[in-house]
């Protein structure tokens, strides 16, 4: 498996042309739009705090059955395409009321590029994971982005209720362990990324791309 650098170029060009992600805010159910709490162009923030315990900026109030519900922002950005004409009117469920234009940060761009470029192993089920001791020693000895693994080698152990299952690298070739996303013995939900591998020969080029993003993109 080789990294498709043309694909990365296309992705970067796309991100450069439009360095935003648009999050449409929809009505969760039918109801009347009672009041808008924001104006076009306002900055809003998503949930904050160490545990995201502080709710996001209130956007509008949707009322159904005399139950006014405050709809809040789930991401940080600028309000656009605000449907002010809907104020006081009945709306259907899943109707887009406004959009939040979220400027992509340097880390978000890097993460998007890496996820599209690297070979990522995802959790097939909710379980606890650990690295195979041999791989763990290799990381300790050489460090991340240096330790090498071969295709077909056992890389992870999935453990759940005393049941253990080895996870192999399915692709052929030699890889560098680029990133480990989990902590040993921590319960990882199904579908979460566990480990990212990069073909050994592509690592220098990929690192140059990441360095370029860090230089070009405002942090």
């Amino acid at each position, binding site marked *: 498996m080789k990294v498709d650098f043309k694909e990365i170029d296309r992705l970067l060009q796309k991100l450069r042309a439009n360095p935003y992600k648009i999050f449409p805010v929809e009505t969760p*159910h039918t109801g009347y739009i009672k009041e808008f709490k924001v104006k076009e162009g306002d900055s809003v923030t998503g949930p904050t*705090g*160490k*545990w995201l*315990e502080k709710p996001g900026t209130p956007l509008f109030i949707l009322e*159904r*059955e*005399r*139950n006014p*519900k405050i709809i809040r922002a789930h991401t940080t950005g600028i309000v656009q395409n605000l449907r002010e004409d809907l104020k006081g009117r009945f709306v259907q469920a899943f109707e887009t009321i406004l959009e939040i234009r979220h400027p992509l940060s340097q880390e978000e761009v890097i993460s998007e590029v890496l996820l599209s470029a690297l070979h990522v192993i995802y959790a097939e089920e909710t379980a606890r994971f650990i690295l195979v001791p041999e791989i763990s020693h290799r990381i300790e000895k050489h460090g991340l982005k240096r330790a090498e693994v071969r295709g077909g080698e056992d890389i992870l152990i999935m453990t759940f209720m005393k049941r253990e299952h080895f996870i192999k690298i399915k692709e052929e070739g030699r890889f560098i362990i680029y990133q480990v996303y989990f902590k040993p013995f921590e319960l990882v939900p199904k579908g979460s990324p566990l480990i990212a591998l990069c073909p050994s020969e592509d690592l220098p080029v990929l690192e140059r791309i990441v360095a370029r993003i860090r230089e070009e993109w405002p942090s």
Partner: protein
Amino acid sequence: MRIENHKRLKELLERAEYIRDIKGEDFEDVMEVYAQLKYAFENFYDLSEEEIDSLLKSSEKRLEELTILGEKTLTPYEIVKITRHPQRFTLQDILENVYDSYVELGGEGEINIDPAVVCAKAMLIRRVGDDFHVHQVMVIGHEKGSGEEFRRGGSAAPWGNEKALRYMRMAETEGIPIHFFIFTPGAYPIEDYPGAAQQIARNLYAMSKLQVPMISFISEGGSGGAEAIGLADLRLMAEKGYYSVISPEGAAAIVAKLRDGRPPRELVEKMANALKLTARDNLELGTIDRIIPEPPLGARKRDYEFFKRLKIELIKATDEVVLRTRGFKTFTKHALSKQTTDNFSYYVDWDLSEDEKEILVELRYEKYRKMTQWAVVIPKGLTHTLKEKGENFLRVLGNEIKYRVLKSGQKTFKRLIDDILSESSLLLKPVSDPVKTVYNLIVGKKVKPRLPTIPEEEGGVYELPVALEDRTVTCPQAEKYGCPDIWVPDLYGEFCGVCPYCGYHFFLEYQWYLNNVFDRGSIKFFDEEIASTNPLNFDGHAEKLKEDRKRTGLNSAFLSFTAKVGGISVVCGMLVADFRQGTVGAAEGEKFIRAIQLAKITRRPFLMFVHSTGGIRIQEGTVGVVQMPRCTMAVRDYVDAGGLYLVIYDNNSYAGPVASFLGSAPYQFALKSTRLGFAGPRVIHETTGQPPPPDYHSAENALRRGHIQGIWDRRELRKRIFHALLTMGGKNLYYR
């Protein structure tokens, strides 16, 4: 001479600093004196001996004057500053200067279970004429340290209080008195096992019947943290100490409704006045027994005269407690009252006999039972008193005859019959078994139900007036679990205020529980006329009490009643959120004690339902705080007598009540969505420097930490209580 002068100069500079810190920079000419001393100290070798001498003389004289002047105008908040000052004496100074020898237990310095709590086995030598008598005591107290951050300013962690309890038990085993020294701004408010509140409750529970004399000395008595080692036979307090339900800063933040940030200085000073936290105030309120005088502006680390006096007072206090348990000691008691020097005219052996230990515990119970009763409105008048006393007498007499004479005889007779039947059935088994098998085959075996079931109440679920509203509400967990909106009549009717999708429990009025948990028509309220007062004359509190009385029709936040659950008679207490957020003051404490005493007399299980409680009512100051030991002693008395005490939490339960009479219950359950803990998020953030996670006080976490025994669903509450009564009480449901 030069070295002596340098030493004196340093001492005077420290004294000037002390006066400046306590009285403020604008106090008289303190800053001028301080500046002169500082200049002389920094340029000591450039100044002539004469110049230094003259400065020392003039400064010493002026500082004396300033101290006297400062003492005359001392405010309660300045007293708080004295107790917190780094130059104030600490437990370490007491151990060094009051006791003749000591061995620290459970760690030293930073290498410790909890450096904020110091336990030591100490020796006190009493001089009687030319004789010397050695007394051994256990010393337990808070150590603020002198600039040692790891002591956390004397805030005991839960395991620090557990350590204190361990050495209290050791003292009991060895039969030696305990001297407690309270130097704490409050307990360290973390919930990790054994839990701040729960451990304080365990300490209070154990101390209420500890069979050794206990003396406590308060310098800085911060609420629940102080109570963890404060339940004593005699409570001494330093003249410049404070003992309060909350710090003035904390009270100001509550009054100003601050979520974060510091309250204004004026409000803090106002609160220090309003809380009546000084030694003199506490003596007037009856929450302490004696004041230990201090030099003007408070004792510091090198006030050896004060330590000498403290030693005499500690010996005298222990003597007094011991002598109270002994009848014929008139001359010794007289000599004790006249004793002022460290050469004693008498000797008291501090070992107690078994009978004296019992008297000691009884006297302790009586002492706390009487405490703060003046702060409660109890209907008086000859007719009422006679009626109440008559009823009590008849109740005690009736139950004594019923349970001690009749039931006890019945029990012995039943046990005898059971033994005979069991023996005879074993003897006849080979003959009777084949006959029984044939009979069962022909007639069919009757299976008895294993557990009795609770009868359903007629008329369905009682609905609150809010259930009549035609609208929907959104579950607070809707975003997490995707719960659809719930129609109000369904939610507050059939669903018992529980989201049918995620199980979130909405707040319900206390009337719902009265109508849906207990058998209809079985509730009989008592002590309704006992009313909350404003014992400290706290500004604006009387009006708030009046408003709450008018709005709720209640006289206090505590409801006491007898009721039945599925036919099982119980005595119940309920703390309701509607009246001052369910906070506990003198009236609530008195009602709790009376209710649990009734349960003891009538041999009924005692069910405590906490609709919500915000802690001890700050407007009642230490009058509220002492409800913690008072009520916990009543719990201990009831449980030791064989009672079944069950606590059920709902909504929010925090602070003092959880750290005493609720947390000391052997069986504690919580309804789902309950929040249970010692201190709220703001206090935790301020004390630990870390904001607690949003679910820090959840029932699930309380269960995980072992603070409660289970989580119940409100829809099954009646059934759960019924089964809990049967299971915990078993066949000895009414009395062990």
